[in-house]
């Protein structure tokens, strides 16, 4: 009876896990195969996909993606922390609901709607240029589309909702007695925040860094549509190689490198977290 129940509860999930594993193994396997132009078949084993990766086109894509991921993580934390803090601590229910719905709606719109909306803001006839021109501040349009900054702003907007949710979860689990204790011992509001609230929300901050880094690394539509090919990233390169050249092996090896990079970044983060805890003496 019990083992029957167990099989029913666990096997479907095991099947999905198998699907994930096999998909990732397929990518790994293809990254070591020779590309046969004009065909979906692949040739024998080779290391050429990886040894050719020193070329500047690949190096640029990786360094640029890494830079974008780090910048996005930093800026989305700076924007999301105050929002999450207000979301948890605001007293009025109506205001709480308003902040919640506004900050999480973008999460559910998907990459296309969000990115397209940013094109309407950043384009040469878009909101920013239109407004500045109407105010007589500029003659020609500022170039905001197809730039690193343009892509960065849109990526930050993409990650804010999920970071707000993670930080809000962490902040809402902080026991308020700690803050009151610090206060009654004479700490000012800023000191209470920096020495009590912020450290206690660290789990949320670390979870946010992980997720925001991974999401930015994964983003495809935003760098493709706003960067327009002039802001190269790993995802846009994988798509080009996979769909324009049908070079699945090279696309696969870029994916493997990307995965290794993400994994080492997350490992480093975990390492620093442990060090931080050791120093803090917890």
């Amino acid at each position: 009876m019990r083992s029957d129940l167990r099989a029913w509860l666990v096997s479907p999930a095991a099947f999905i896990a198998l699907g994930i594993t096999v998909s990732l193994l397929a990518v790994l396997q293809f990254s070591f195969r020779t590309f046969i132009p004009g065909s979906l078949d692949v040739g024998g084993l080779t290391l050429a996909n990886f040894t050719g990766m020193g070329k500047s086109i690949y190096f640029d894509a990786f360094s640029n993606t890494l830079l974008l991921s780090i910048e996005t993580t930093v800026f989305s934390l700076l924007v999301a922390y105050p929002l999450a803090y207000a979301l948890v601590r605001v007293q009025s229910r109506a205001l709480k609901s308003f902040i919640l719905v506004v900050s999480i709606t973008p999460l559910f719109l998907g990459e296309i709607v969000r990115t397209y909306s940013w094109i309407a803001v950043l384009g040469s006839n878009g909101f920013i240029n239109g407004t500045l021109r109407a105010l007589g501040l500029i003659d020609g349009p500022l170039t905001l589309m197809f730039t690193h900054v343009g892509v960065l702003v849109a990526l930050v907007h993409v990650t804010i909702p999920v970071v707000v949710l993670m930080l809000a979860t962490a902040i809402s689990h902080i026991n308020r007695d700690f803050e009151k204790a610090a206060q009654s011992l004479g700490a000012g509001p800023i000191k209470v925040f920096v020495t009590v609230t912020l450290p206690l929300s660290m789990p949320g901050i670390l979870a946010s860094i992980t997720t925001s880094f991974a999401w930015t690394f994964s983003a495809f539509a935003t760098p493709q549509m706003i960067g327009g090919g002039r802001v190269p990233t790993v995802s846009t390169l994988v798509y080009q190689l996979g769909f324009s050249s049908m070079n699945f092996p090279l696309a696969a090896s870029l994916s493997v490198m990307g995965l290794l990079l993400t994994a080492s970044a997350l490992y480093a983060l975990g390492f620093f977290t442990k060090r931080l805890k050791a120093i803090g003496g917890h």
Partner: protein
Amino acid sequence: MKIQSSLPLSMRIAGPMLIAVLLAFVLLPVVVVTIASFNAKAIISFPPESYSLNWFARVFTYPDFREGFRASMIITGWSSFLALVIGTGLAIAVKSLEFKGKQTLLAILHSPLVVPHFTLGLGLLILVSQTSVQRHYGIVILCHIMLVLPFVLRSVYVSMENLDARLEQAAASLGASPVKVLFTVTIPLLAPGLFGGWLFAAIMSFSEFTASLFVTTQATQTLPVAMYNYVREYADPTLAALSVVYIVVTATVLAFANYFLGLGKILNIEDNH
């Protein structure tokens, strides 16, 4: 509240102003795209000189959008339902049973949170191209289940943490079988959390783009993929109009869910202390 009232006046003003500016940043593209969607001109330009509803009419008549919507509904319906069933089953098993490879299984199932969507999409595409499997709905649904399952699991866990185990024990001590306890006590008590998980999964699946781009064909093209293809071909504000429809529907669903269920509770961000 004591902590707030002890703040100096400048900080009591600066805080709300900062929040207002940040909310404005989040809302800016939404507002701009809404205004742009009523522009009579065939390009995005600001501010609009004349207004029209033409682009909204085109949204509902453009065949790829109608087909894409249909495909998205099929894929979202199946993947969110199956993810909910699979996720709930697993969450219950993880909580109450011991089995081999539990941690490994969970680690693999959560990996799509950090594995780029294009990598998973490419993997599935390679598998399909190497086997005789057709690139039909099944493969897209499988792909979406992989991507939304971690979110369903999180939501089910949160509501299971708040579940009073004594209610299950009481039912069992009165002679209910494990299956009966599951269906008459555990699942009804979990219902709000399950609904939240399902809603989350459904909206995520409906909007998923990157992996869908790899695994769909012309016949299974989802709405976001159809939208992406539209932007590459046309520069008119039709997509702005579609974005507005998307935003209005999504915000309404979220506001209703918040009103009736308390999103804060489902998302586990209520201030408990």
